Structures are given as structure tokens and as C-alpha cells.
């Protein structure tokens, strides 16, 4: 009490001193009580200016970040959008029974059929060198398409069919305006003659842009016009499935135990600190762990979604545990008391009341963790998911790659046409993320409606 009184006295004295001092120096300005209000008014203006300044600053921060976001999306979309279109060439293919007359339809020389029809299309090309340049206008994938068709339907042999077959990436780029035809011939990857033929074909209506179904149906390829993201997308889905299956139950169980059942002592403190630290461990470390433990020690299959999923769930566990614990903490204690008060056991209280209320938060945490896992590249590089894989994975143990790694691989490719495919793959990845978040929001709403 004494000290409080003393402090009060002191502050009163100080105040008196200040006002004395004030009246000494600014006597003319602040002699009466009304002028005290004036001083407040002065300070008020300053306060308002401060607030205004702060508001403007934060508003401009929002605008700045929004504009960066718009810039990002604009560049990705403008780069990636053309990849959803592909240039096809209309060829009259004569399935010559002489060419196809071999033991196996698979081994026949389908390239010859394509070349034949190209020669018919542009009959004035005669020299060997020119012919080779002409053949380059068609993708090497065209012959595979013919092969597939004939194997599926051998009655085609002997007939002549008009077919849209994939053009090479260079005419594709030229048609999309990605190659500047005004540059001197030596500075562009396409020759004057090729440009001339392409113009000729366009005039005939034999070169058109169609929706690029290959992009969504094929796996990776060295040829940009044949490369697709289905392999990577499937790989991502399988990997995420493994991650979800492992990390959600384990993380929720760990969070519930730590939050509701564990005694509060030094050991649980240590565990808590370590979980928080694990969330900050660089992801490549988890990749190294996967390499050392799962691949080398347990001998699990390399490059497989199974191992990728296990590694990513190790990485996402801390995130989900932290979010789940936060949402468990947010459940009001009155609900626990209510349940305990009617004689529910600890476990009944937790499972009947606390977890259902915390579930939306836990699911949000899980989705954040999975989104993080979806975009993760580094740990997957360590376990071999960076390989060039053409086949679409059919199971958890097949070699595969994932979307971000595919983006990384394509971004590294020298062909001009891979640039737009990179951006298109980023678009697909973003769509995947958005739909995942949308699903989470939907599930959360549905869950909350139960109450």
C-alpha cells in the first residue's frame, strides 16, 4: 500500500512539475483549461495522421501482393494456355499391304507410310536433303499412332484413310507465333523451305490446331508434342493417397494423446519441442532419411509412390499434429466438463465430444499438410522419383514421378515447346491444389452441419 501511495504521490508531483514547466514556457499558448483541449486536438490530428499513414501502408501492401499474384497467374496462364492446343497435320494414309506384310503388325515400318503420304502431299520436293526436312514436319509419334490403329483394327490394311496426325513441335511453335519468322534463317530452328511448306499446308487446310488430348492422356516423352502429364498426375495422386492414409490417422492419434491423455511432464515437453522442430526441418533431410532407411535398409522399390508417400507423410506429420493440437485446444473446456459431469469416461468425452468439434480444424491442418506434400520436390529427388518415366504408373510400387518433379524436368528441357508445357503443368498442379482445398471446404461444411 505504501509503495502504491508513494508512486501516486510521485506521479502527481511529476504532473504538477510538468504543468508548471509548461506554464512557464508556453504560458501564452496554454494558460487555461480550454487550451488543454486544444493540445488534445493537436495530438488528435497527429494520431489521425499516424493511423491514416498506417492504413495506407497496409493497403498498399495488399495491393502489391495482389498485383504480384496477378502477374504470376497472368504469366503462367499466358505461357501455358497454348499448350492445351496442339497442331495436327491431315495426312491421307494408304495402309499399304506391302509395307505391312510382315509377321508382326507391331514391327512393321509405319514411318514409311507417313513419309509416303507426305511425299504425295508435297510432290515437288525431290532432293534427298529436302525430303528429310519435309519428313521432320510430322512428329515421330505419328507412326506410333498408326501402329496402334492397325493393331486394334487390322481390317484397315489396304485402305486409304485421312487422318489428323500430330505435327512436330516446330510447326506447332511457328503456328502459335512462338518462332519469329522474320529472323534470318540461321537464327531460327526452322528453315525457309519448311516455312514455305507449312504455309502451303495451312492454305490447303491440312495444318490445324486441335485440343491437346495427348497432354492429358500420355506420360512423359522426349518429344514435346507427345509429352503429357497423366503419368505425373497419377503419380501425385498415388503418393498423396499414401501420405493421407499414413499421416492423418497417425497425426490425429498423436495429437489427441498429447493433448488429452499425456501427463504434462518433462518427457511430453521434450516430445512437443521436437515435433515443433521437426516442422522446420528442411524437406530434403526427409528425402535422405527415405533413401537411407526405406530404400537402402528396407529395400523398398525405388522411384515408387509408396516410398514417396511414406517420406512425405513423415514430412507432413508435424504440420498436421500442430494444427490438430491447436484445434483440440480450441474446444471449450465446458464441453469436456459437461461430458465428464454426466459420467462419460475420459475416452468417451474425447471421442464423442472433443474430436468431433475439433475435426474441422484437424481436416484443415491435414489439407495444409497435403498441399505442402503435393508441392514438394526435394525429398522425392532423393528417392529416385526424378527419373524419366514414360509409363503411367499402375500401382503403388511402379516407378513414377509427381507433378512438381515433372515441372522441374520439363523446365530443364531445351525445346521451346516444353516452356508452354511447363506452364500448363503448373496450371494443372494449381487446379489440383484448388480442387483439393475445395474438397476440404466442402467436407468441413458438411461436417459442421451435423451439429
Amino acid at each position, binding site marked *: 500500500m505504501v509503495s502504491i501511495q508513494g508512486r501516486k504521490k510521485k506521479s502527481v508531483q511529476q504532473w504538477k512539475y510538468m504543468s508548471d514547466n509548461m506554464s512557464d514556457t508556453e504560458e501564452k499558448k496554454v494558460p487555461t483549461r480550454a487550451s488543454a483541449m486544444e493540445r488534445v486536438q493537436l495530438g488528435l490530428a497527429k494520431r489521425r495522421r499516424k493511423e491514416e499513414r498506417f492504413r495506407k501502408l497496409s493497403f498498399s501492401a495488399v495491393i502489391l501482393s495482389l498485383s504480384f499474384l496477378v502477374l504470376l497467374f497472368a504469366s503462367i496462364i499466358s505461357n501455358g494456355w497454348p499448350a492445351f492446343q496442339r497442331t495436327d497435320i491431315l495426312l491421307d494414309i494408304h495402309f499399304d499391304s506391302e509395307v505391312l506384310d510382315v509377321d508382326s503388325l507391331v514391327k512393321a515400318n509405319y514411318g514409311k507410310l507417313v513419309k509416303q503420304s507426305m511425299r504425295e502431299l508435297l510432290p515437288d520436293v525431290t532432293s534427298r536433303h529436302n525430303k528429310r526436312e519435309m519428313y521432320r514436319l510430322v512428329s515421330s509419334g505419328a507412326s506410333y499412332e498408326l501402329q496402334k490403329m492397325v493393331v486394334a483394327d487390322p481390317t484397315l490394311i489396304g485402305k486409304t484413310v485421312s487422318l489428323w496426325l500430330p505435327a512436330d513441335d516446330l510447326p506447332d511453335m511457328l503456328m502459335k507465333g512462338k518462332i519469329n519468322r522474320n529472323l534470318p534463317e540461321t537464327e531460327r530452328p526452322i528453315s525457309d523451305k519448311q516455312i514455305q511448306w507449312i504455309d502451303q499446308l495451312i492454305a490447303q487446310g491440312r495444318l490445324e490446331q486441335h485440343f491437346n488430348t495427348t497432354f492429358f492422356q500420355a506420360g512423359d516423352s522426349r518429344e514435346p508434342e507427345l509429352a503429357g502429364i497423366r503419368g505425373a498426375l497419377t503419380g501425385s495422386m498415388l503418393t498423396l493417397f499414401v501420405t493421407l492414409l499414413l499421416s492423418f490417422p497417425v497425426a490425429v492419434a498423436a495429437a489427441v494423446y498429447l493433448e488429452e491423455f499425456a501427463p504434462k511432464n518433462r518427457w511430453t515437453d521434450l516430445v512437443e519441442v521436437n515435433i515443433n522442430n521437426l516442422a522446420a526441418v528442411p524437406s530434403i533431410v526427409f528425402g535422405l532419411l527415405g533413401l537411407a532407411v526405406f530404400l537402402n535398409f528396407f529395400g523398398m522399390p525405388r522411384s515408387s509412390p509408396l516410398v514417396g508417400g511414406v517420406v512425405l507423410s513423415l514430412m507432413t506429420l508435424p504440420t498436421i499434429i500442430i494444427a490438430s493440437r491447436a484445434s483440440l485446444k480450441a474446444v*471449450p473446456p465446458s*464441453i469436456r466438463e459437461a461430458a465428464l*459431469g*454426466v459420467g462419460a*469416461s475420459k475416452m468417451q468425452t474425447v471421442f464423442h465430444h472433443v474430436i468431433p468439434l475439433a475435426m474441422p480444424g484437424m481436416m484443415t491442418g491435414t489439407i495444409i499438410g497435403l498441399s505442402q506434400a503435393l508441392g514438394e520436390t526435394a525429398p522425392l529427388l532423393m528417392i529416385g522419383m526424378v527419373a524419366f518415366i514414360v509409363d503411367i504408373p499402375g500401382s503403388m510400387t511402379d516407378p513414377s514421378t509427381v507433378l512438381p518433379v515433372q515441372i522441374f524436368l520439363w523446365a530443364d528441357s531445351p525445346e521451346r515447346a516444353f516452356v508452354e508445357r511447363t506452364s500448363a503443368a503448373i496450371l494443372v498442379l494449381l487446379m489440383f491444389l484448388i480442387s483439393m482445398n475445395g474438397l476440404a471446404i466442402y467436407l468441413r461444411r458438411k461436417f459442421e452441419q451435423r*451439429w
Partner: protein
Amino acid sequence: MITAEHTSMNKAPYFAGYGKEAYEVIPTSSILASQRTLSEEKEQAREETVGEPFVDAPRMTCRGVDVWYGDKQAIMDVNIDIGKNQVLAMIGPSGCGKSTFLRCLNRMNDTVPICRVGGEIILDGMNIYDKKIDVVPLRAQVGMVFQKPNPFPKSIYDNIAYGPKIHGLVNNQAETDEVVEYSLTRAGLWEEVKDRLDQPGTGLSGGQQQRLCIARAIAVRPEVILMDEPCSALDPIATATVEDLIDELRQQYTIVIVTHNMQQAARVSQRTAYFHLGKLIEVGITDQLFTNPGHQLTEDYITGRFG
């Protein structure tokens, strides 16, 4: 009902035994000096309880109850009987330990990790703090209504049905319906909610929510109902309804109520206990305690000199 002779007869052996035992049971490895001061305070507390803390046929018997939160003693040597089919009100200034004591009666304090309880609280011949006692049936037997209405975020029906379901008191839908109707009727809520049992319990008004909580407590057929300031969040009209309800429930249940409102204690209770700084200062028949308090502190409190 309660005689001075009876009281004094009971006092001597209990105080001789239990005070000591409490210290043996509870591991107080902490400072010896503070133990000494605590035991000195106990001596005082022993002397200070005036009035008639004991009754002839008690439902619950509390002897030498001490409660610690960590090193701080919140309740000191409380000795009181809780009479069958009557309302015992506990009054006292904030922080006097009345809520803490109430929560000891069905071991709700178990949820507080630093809380330790010594002494004996006997229900049906067993100390409820005995290691053999399971808290689940105990809490079914000694129900609780909290300060703030806390219905589950479920339908009105599910709020009531939850307790009987987990205890296996009902086997089928018809029985559950019956329990729900009975409990809500007993709590005086049936007429108001019978057409909207599927609506969330949190959508009711404050007073209705509190009666829902009382109905929920009744639904598990308890013998004792503990109420921790059940009306503190309610308006006067809702309070009056709940008070009438408490009076009615007394026929069937033993009720212990903590309240800050002395008028309320006077209205609803038969016996009143006055707590002060963790000590039970005075217990008496409500009318006597309010008209003729036996202790200076009680008098000061009920005349509004502090608290």
C-alpha cells in the same frame, strides 16, 4: 434433527484422526516450514467451524477435507454432512473455495493436474477418493450442473439421451424417448421444447439451456446433484424458474448448490454453509444462519460488510 451433543460427540474422534491422516496420505515433500504453518492454520480452522455441520442421516459425509493447488492450500480441514433430500447452499466471498469444495464431491477436480485432495468424502460407506473407486459411476451417482449453461452442440434430444446411452440405462428407442420426456418434464422444459427436440440445444435461451443441463443431469438418475452457481448467467425470471425447479427436485434428490446470491441461498436451501478463505466458518439451518449467525465473519458477510 441436529443436536449440540451429537455434534460435539462426533467432533472429537474425527478431528483427532483425520487431520493427521490427511498429511500422511498426501505427499507433501514441499517445504517443512510451510507444513507447520498449514497445520497451525488447520488448528484454527478446527476451532472456527461453528454451528451444526453434522446431520443424523447424511447422504455424503466429508471429514478433514483439504485441497491443494500445487503448494497453495485452497480448502482447509472441512467437516460437513450433506443431508438427504435437502438443499445445502454454500456461500462465501469469491475465492473462498466453495466451488472447489463442490467439485471435490464428484471428483471433477481430477481434471486439474495440480490439484490434490486429502481427507475423506464418504458416499455409501466408501471414500470416493479411494483408489478402488471408479469416477464414471461416481459421476453418474453425483451429477453436476455448471455455472455457465453448457449443452452439447447437439440436438435437445441427444443432449438428454447421451448420459443414459453411455451408461446403458436405456436399451431401445422407446426407453430413450421415455427418459428424455421424463427428464425434460422434471426440469420443467418439456412443454417448451417438445415440438423441437431435434433442434440444437445451443439454440435455446440461457434459462432454457440451464434447465436443459439440469434435465441432462437428471437423465442419468443421480442421487446427488451439485450445482455451481447455476443462476449466475441467468436473468431474474429464468432464475426464479430454476429456483422453483430446485425446490421441486429436492423431494427426490440431494442438492448442493454454490451461490453468490444470499437471497437465493435463503430461498432455496434448508442448510447453509459459509466458507471464508478456504475454511468452513459456519454451517447451520438456513433460517437460523441468516437471522442469527454464530460467527462474526458470517455476520459480516450476510450483512454485506464485505464480500
